[in-house]
């Protein structure tokens, strides 16, 4: 079936988009903005939703590089950590407002991504994966020793009065929910746009066959760097959000390998290279992780990682397309059954 050559319908970034999907998207978002009205006195649920949004954003950002461009990084914690440190140090040492600090974090993380990408993007497959791993580990080790950034003890943010201007909310945490949700909405719209734009086409081409993309006249390095800048920059802001939310950053919580694992796992589990994948992945995995934290508190902090590890293995071996591919194959089967 070939579509009509002139599109009379709605388009977004040059491609047609269904009105129904737009309505569903914004209706969903609208409901999510109303939910906090019903979460009064339910701090666990409020926190759960807030971290689901945060990690969905982090998953989206990993997915830009890993899912669309096919450059698998297992060192993405470094960009999250750099973002957290940037705004915190800017605040502690120079009194920079955390909102401005968040923008600085985006810039610093994106720049770091580009600087790391320039040499590392010459590497392919496992060479690249290991490079991201050793760079992230080096940054972790250096930050654990560097007294300017608080070394192994980390940095504590001074308590300021609650308020939007301070990016700190103490008794009522609902504003964090709104900020995280807004981040998710903005980033998701951005990824939908990117996927349909020239950049998205070229990135998917690089994932499929880098040499063929080059033979057509695109510079793969240039596009990989663009993807890296987006990916790292978004994570940088997530780092700032985390710092303002928890008010304490230490190398083991913001730079550690487990963050890199989760950030990669969320889109892989949900569906690598899809817009909905990171959101589905975050909903399922963060729910598991937050509940396991409640039930195995203290010693069992790692039950979530135990489940995650098992899930990564099972999905890699039995369902490499993630939940999204399960859904689409179920749909296909359902349609066949209907006919």
């Amino acid at each position: 079936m070939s579509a009509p050559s002139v599109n009379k319908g709605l388009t977004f970034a040059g491609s047609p988009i269904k009105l129904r999907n737009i309505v569903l998207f914004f209706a969903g978002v609208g409901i999510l903005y109303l939910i906090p009205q019903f979460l009064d006195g339910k701090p666990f649920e409020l926190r759960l939703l807030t971290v689901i949004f945060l990690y969905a954003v982090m998953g989206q950002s990993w997915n830009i590089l890993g899912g669309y461009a096919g450059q698998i990084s297992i060192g993405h914690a470094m960009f999250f950590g750099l973002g957290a440190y940037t705004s915190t140090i800017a605040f502690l040492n120079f009194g920079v407002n955390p909102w401005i600090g968040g923008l600085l974090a985006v810039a610093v993380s994106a720049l770091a991504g580009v600087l790391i990408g320039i040499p590392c993007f010459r590497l392919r497959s496992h060479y690249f994966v290991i490079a991201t791993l050793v760079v992230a580990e080096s940054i972790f080790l250096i930050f654990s020793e560097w007294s300017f950034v608080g070394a192994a003890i980390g940095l504590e943010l001074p308590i300021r009065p609650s308020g939007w201007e301070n990016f700190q909310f103490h008794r009522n945490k609902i504003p964090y929910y709104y900020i995280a949700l807004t981040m998710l909405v903005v980033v998701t719209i951005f990824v939908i746009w990117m996927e349909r734009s020239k950049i998205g086409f070229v990135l998917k081409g690089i994932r499929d066959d880098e040499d063929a993309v080059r033979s057509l006249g695109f510079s793969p390095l240039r596009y990989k760097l663009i993807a890296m800048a987006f990916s790292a920059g978004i994570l940088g802001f997530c780092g700032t959000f985390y710092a303002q939310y928890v008010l304490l950053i230490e190398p083991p919580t913001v730079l550690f390998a487990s963050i890199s694992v989760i950030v990669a796992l969320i889109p892989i589990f949900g569906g690598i290279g899809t817009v909905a994948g990171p959101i589905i992945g975050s909903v399922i995995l963060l729910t598991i992780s937050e509940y396991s934290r409640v039930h195995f508190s203290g010693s069992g902090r790692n039950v979530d990682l135990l489940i995650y590890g098992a899930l990564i293995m099972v999905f890699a071996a039995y369902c490499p397309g993630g939940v999204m591919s399960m859904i689409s194959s179920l749909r296909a089967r359902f349609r066949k059954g209907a006919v």
Partner: protein
Amino acid sequence: MNPILRVENVSVRFGGLQALGDVSFAVANNEILGVVGPNGAGKSTLFGVICGDVHPDAGSTLLAGKSITGKSSDEIARSGLVRTFQTPRPFTTMTFLENVTLAALTKTNDVAIARERARLVLDQVGLSDCCDRPSSGASTGQRKRLDIARALGTEPSVLLLDEPLGGVDPGSIADMLALLKRIRDRGVTLVVIEHNLEALTGIADRLIAMTLGKKIADGAPKDVMSDDRLVRAYLGDDDAAA
């Protein structure tokens, strides 16, 4: 005659092997030039040098009078010289249309415009029925056409085709040859590596013959085909060629 592509005294060594030795030739604007020779003659290495995938040890290449020697392959492609691969390499997670749309995005930032252009190109190569099919399921003949369509999507002035008839079923060869002629009639210069000599002589304006990294004949297809050096090269009498 002002040649659009010139190859001057190009030599390439891989370790101890002389892959190309002092090869020179020119391609006239809007010509179909066939490159023939037995396996290992250096035809693919020659393509590699022209496209910037292989850096020559000596010699130079010029496109429309400007040197492209030592430039990166994407830069050369942007200046209008694009290749296809011996084994077609479609972007397997994309549909036919998306494959060509990506190529057309070299000339525009607007995806809608690129998509319209891709439809036209797919129509030209006879794949308009396949637009929305995934390219992973394509037959060899379809892949060959898709590869050509993708290259055409970049609006090249020179197209290097590496065995466009390889793996194409005999019944479709005439179609493919007609397609190549149509592409030339639209103003594109074609350089074609092909083992099907009979088919190639039918459309080429000129042939160059190679063996063991050297050019041994250059001229009208009939003359080159009857050149006994080429005949001996194919029969494997290496001494005669040297």
